């Protein structure tokens, strides 16, 4: 099993009156090669879920076992390494670094892997070509449209060929057409073997995934496979 959450809770201000249970005793297993949509209203805990799954945040209670390792036991260095090599993030706001050009943004995870300059550039161009931006490597993110920026972010997420892709509302800032393209690309990545975790509040977007996990008030209310709208 690739991802296992055992009775995971994320509680803010625990014990106080203002206590917030962003995740409340959640257990979940995700296997290699799955395409899971985590769906919920805002405040349902889906973003917290993604942060925990992405090793960006640490659960208050319970265990998160990733590829057989309990992440609670890992050091900052090891967690960084997992984020670097095993997980590719795609964010709603793209999260590109504005003063770096497209190629440099895509190379960023490769830099932290310690890959040499020329090999890095090669891999970045390969990833950018896959998202159809192979000819824009010198552009600055600010010179591009939202859709293009999100494609750069996708290229950055896939450049290091991580087994897991986590996408947090990847279409949230895009028009429906470019959003459609992004989802189609995620499906394609999944068909090629990547595990995709898609966080969304939108059921129609969740319909592109093969499995739906619905969250409400920090608890899982629904978890089932579904027929997929192949785009």
């Amino acid at each position, binding site marked *: 099993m690739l991802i296992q959450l055992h009775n995971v809770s994320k509680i803010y201000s625990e014990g106080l009156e203002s206590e917030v249970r962003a995740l409340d005793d959640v257990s979940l297993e995700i296997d290699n090669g799955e395409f899971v949509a985590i769906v919920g209203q805002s405040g349902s805990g889906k973003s917290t879920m993604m942060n925990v799954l992405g090793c*960006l945040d640490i659960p208050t209670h319970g265990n998160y076992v990733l590829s057989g390792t309990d992440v609670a036991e890992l050091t900052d260095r090891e967690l*960084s390494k997992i*984020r670097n090599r095993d997980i590719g*993030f795609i964010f709603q706001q793209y999260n*590109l*670094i504005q*003063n770096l050009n497209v190629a440099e943004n895509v190379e960023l995870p490769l830099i*932290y892997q*310690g890959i040499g300059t020329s090999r890095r550039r090669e891999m970045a161009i390969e990833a950018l070509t896959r998202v159809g931006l192979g000819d824009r490597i010198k552009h600055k993110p600010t010179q591009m449209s939202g859709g293009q920026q999100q494609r750069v972010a996708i290229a950055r997420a896939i450049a290091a060929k991580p087994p897991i892709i986590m996408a947090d509302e990847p279409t949230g800032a895009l028009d429906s057409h470019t959003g459609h393209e992004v989802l189609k690309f995620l499906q394609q990545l999944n068909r090629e073997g990547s595990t995709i975790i898609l966080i969304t509040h939108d059921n129609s977007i969740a319909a592109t995934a093969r499995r739906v996990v619905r969250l409400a008030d920090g608890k899982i209310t629904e978890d089932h496979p579904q027929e997929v709208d192949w785009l």
Partner: protein
Amino acid sequence: MNLRQAIKMAWKSIVGNKGRSILTMLGIIIGIASVMTIVTVINGMNKVSMQYYEAMGNNRVNVSASVWNGRDIFDELYSYCNGLGSDLVLGVTPNSQFSASVVYGSKSSTAMEKNQESFWNNYSGGDVDTSIALPPTLYLGSDQYAVCNNFQLERGRDLSYLDVKDYHQVCVLGARAAKNFFNYADPIGQEIMVNGLPFTVIGLYKEKDATSAWSMDNMIVFPYTMSRYLAPGTQITEFVVKASSSDATVEATSRLIGYLGGVIREGEGYSSVYSDNQWQQSSNEYATMMSLVLGGIAAISLLVGGIGIMNIMLVTVTERTREIGIRRAIGAPRRSIVVQFLIEAAMLCGIGGIIGILFGAGGSLVAGKLLLKMIIYPAAGITMGAFLLSVALGIIFGIYPAAKASRLQPVEALRAD
């Protein structure tokens, strides 16, 4: 992430924020430039005084000795010193000045005194013209006058033992005095009139102090035994003993103190012995102290500059919280965030340091020209030190902001605008 990447990244961020980078560097630039200028100028001042001492000669022991009954003690001093051996003492001479009128043809020291007077009446600061003929200083000396006062014979011959012993009416001229009286004519063999007595010029000393208006070369030395004619009634009380080395100076000083204490008994007279080396040493110590005090004040400005760096770096961290979050999410460990910000701070300060060094070198040149009338450059050691200091400042004042950056939680950092 390797160091080269980190340096590239830091460079990008510095160049990407030119205005802010320059403002940040300003404190360091001013600090380094002032430290460099101050230290260099003080070193230059010290060098000037060392040059002065060097021209006058090292390892001189000044002896003042006077006997109330007017007995001449130089004979005794002369034989005592020359008995000490040349590994200790190289020579001894009276070093008394006297005033007299010196005349050669149409040139006279009286006219030169007028020059001096009118010069002072018209003096309003600034450089002194070395072409003004000022009156020479007249000395009474022994045959060892030259070695004691660091003069070298250029032409002719020096005072001899017999000149002294037999009251020869001869004299030796310093280069400036020769120029003032003889211009470009050959003074050797000519007679000058001193207080109406003819003296033959037998020799000429080499120029050793060409740039000063009151040059050490503007002198004439006579056999001290002529004092009975030239300066009747004055007792010779000032002597110079030339020791062979700085160690010998110490030794000779203590021996002379002992010797004079024996020759001049309590109540009969007085004597004092001190060496120029002591002056040099205290002038050196003074310069070091000046460097420390003024350098310290300038160092405070550097400290302020460093705090400025810290301030801006903290602002930078806040401004770039999101970038830090992105980098952390993508897999940057804490350490590489620390390294990134540290390198950025060190680089900012290093660049500021280099600019400061350039300004400091310029400042030293200008200050040297204005204050010391000489060209001074910062020493290589000072330059290197200033550069390393600025980089070190960057690292020291970068640590806190860098640590702060690295402690940001990725989730929270990503949430920042």
